[in-house]
């Protein structure tokens, strides 16, 4: 490294080609670019400076309509594998974060939750995966686990409306859990997340990382 501090080098030249390799499902090229990043910076810096921005850009591109959900899903899953290799779950470099969980509320459509879970883990976060739950089960589990940040994924409108029950039950129990929501109903009605009492809404998986990052700083 010629005496240059490990994490001072920019990876900005790698982000676009890395993102393109994910979008075209070119795993060999993505691996090679990630290896290049690791030759320049530490594993956690490679995650934060290459994988996180690439996935964030893909999420934004999906929201704007230029990238498809299948690409976001397969790209996120692959990045999750890359991060697993260099940052095992117990690695001390994993982010010091509030206890977080993700859940599919009421629905049976798992894809959105799986994408957000992959992108969160590929961005260095550890979080409980609650799978699919209904309102009462979720409230009890989140309180028992002393969760601080709860990510709620839905596909159907009735499930989105049930977030209001989750938020009101948590408040009635004196909890200050922050709730972020995501899923189709919230994309089609930009006011719905406020109506159901959520604290934030993500339009893409990348937004989930941004939201939790911001809340993590507030809670620090």
């Amino acid at each position, binding site marked *: 490294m010629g005496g240059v501090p490990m994490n001072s080098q920019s990876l900005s030249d790698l982000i676009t080609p890395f993102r393109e390799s994910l979008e075209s499902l070119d795993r060999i090229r993505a691996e090679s670019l990630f290896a290049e990043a690791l030759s320049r910076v530490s594993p956690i810096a490679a995650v934060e400076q290459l994988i996180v921005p690439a996935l964030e850009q893909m999420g934004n591109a999906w929201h704007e309509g230029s990238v498809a959900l299948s690409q976001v899903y*397969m790209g996120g899953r692959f990045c999750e594998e890359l991060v697993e290799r260099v940052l095992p779950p117990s690695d001390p470099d994993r982010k010091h974060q509030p206890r977080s969980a993700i859940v599919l509320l009421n629905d049976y459509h798992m894809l959105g939750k799986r994408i957000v879970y992959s992108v969160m883990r590929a961005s260095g976060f550890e979080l409980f995966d609650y799978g699919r739950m209904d309102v009462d089960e979720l409230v009890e589990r989140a309180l028992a686990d002393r969760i601080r940040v709860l990510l709620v994924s839905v596909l159907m409108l009735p499930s989105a409306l049930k977030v209001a029950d989750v938020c009101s039950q948590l408040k009635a129990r004196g909890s200050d859990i922050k709730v972020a929501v995501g899923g*189709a109903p919230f994309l089609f009605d930009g006011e719905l997340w406020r*109506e159901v009492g959520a604290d934030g809404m993500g339009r893409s998986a990348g937004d989930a990382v941004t939201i939790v990052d911001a809340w993590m700083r507030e809670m620090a």
Partner: protein
Amino acid sequence: MNSMERVLTTLGHKEPDRVPLFLLANMHGAKELGLSLRDYYASAGNVIDGEMRLLEKFGSDCAYPFFYASLEIEAWGGDTIFSADGPPLCGPPVIRRPEDIDSLRPPEVESSPALRRVLDTIAGLKQRLDGRVPIIAVAISPFSLPVMQMGFDRYIELMHEQPDRFLKLMQTNEEFTVNWANAQLAAGATAICYFDPVSSTTNIPRDLYLATGQQVAKRALARIKGPTATHMASGRCLPILGDIADTGTAVVGVSILEDLARLKAAAAGRVTLLGNLNGIEMRRWTPADAELAVKRAIAAAGPGGGFILSDNHGEIPFQVADETLLAIREAVDRWGRYPLDWVQDWTDPGPT
């Protein structure tokens, strides 16, 4: 003009007496009869009565004997989960492991009580409507059915990682979908709404669509013995609109996420557009909101025909108030009459 004449005229890319309205509020039939969704859909007689009442009340230009999507999964041996306030959902996947696809066989339409209820409903509506109102039946595309059969995440993995099994699944599903669509046409349906949201560019990129969903659609639509409308169920399709037209479909259901005027230009007289009112926002629309949304859609896509006003998902949420549906109806009566002279001078007031 009656509804059938109005719709056929717009499908011919000519201007009828007014913009046709497909108000796809099928679940509202249960409200009309004071029944739960489970009880409503348990009997063809209920749905026939419900549809007739909805036609009378809201004046839609089609009957829509669509029960719920997971009804097809019942035919494959799966379950439906009913709730009080929304569309019935599909239970656990019927394909639990990719290996299950190897022995999967298409179910017989006649052996499924759920599918027979739909056929009886179509036959009953046909008898009552006597060709005056088109009956739009639904078949989930063979390419989109696996989202319910095995889960969307596993299906995306299958497409990318097990191409041979993917092809086997498509062959099996095509047999079922074609038979199911043709049975509904034989029972009296005017056209088939071919729901294909996985083909949307929201879900897969264009190159993958051309290699998969489009090929499936070309094969399936060629064997369906009647006209079809391809619906993206809220997904985007502008980059593939011409590709969808190449499958032989007559109509494309489009999303509020895309500019309707650009979609109309891209359709270029090849396909009629169906859409694109925002069904989710509709839940909290005032009558003035409804009127503005109708005006926007008609201004963007109404001129010249080739346009049917509808919601953008193919199913209006159960929570949408009757007053809102009536406001949509009234706005179409007021602003949808051809010739649309007001469009040229109209300026969109922007967000309300």
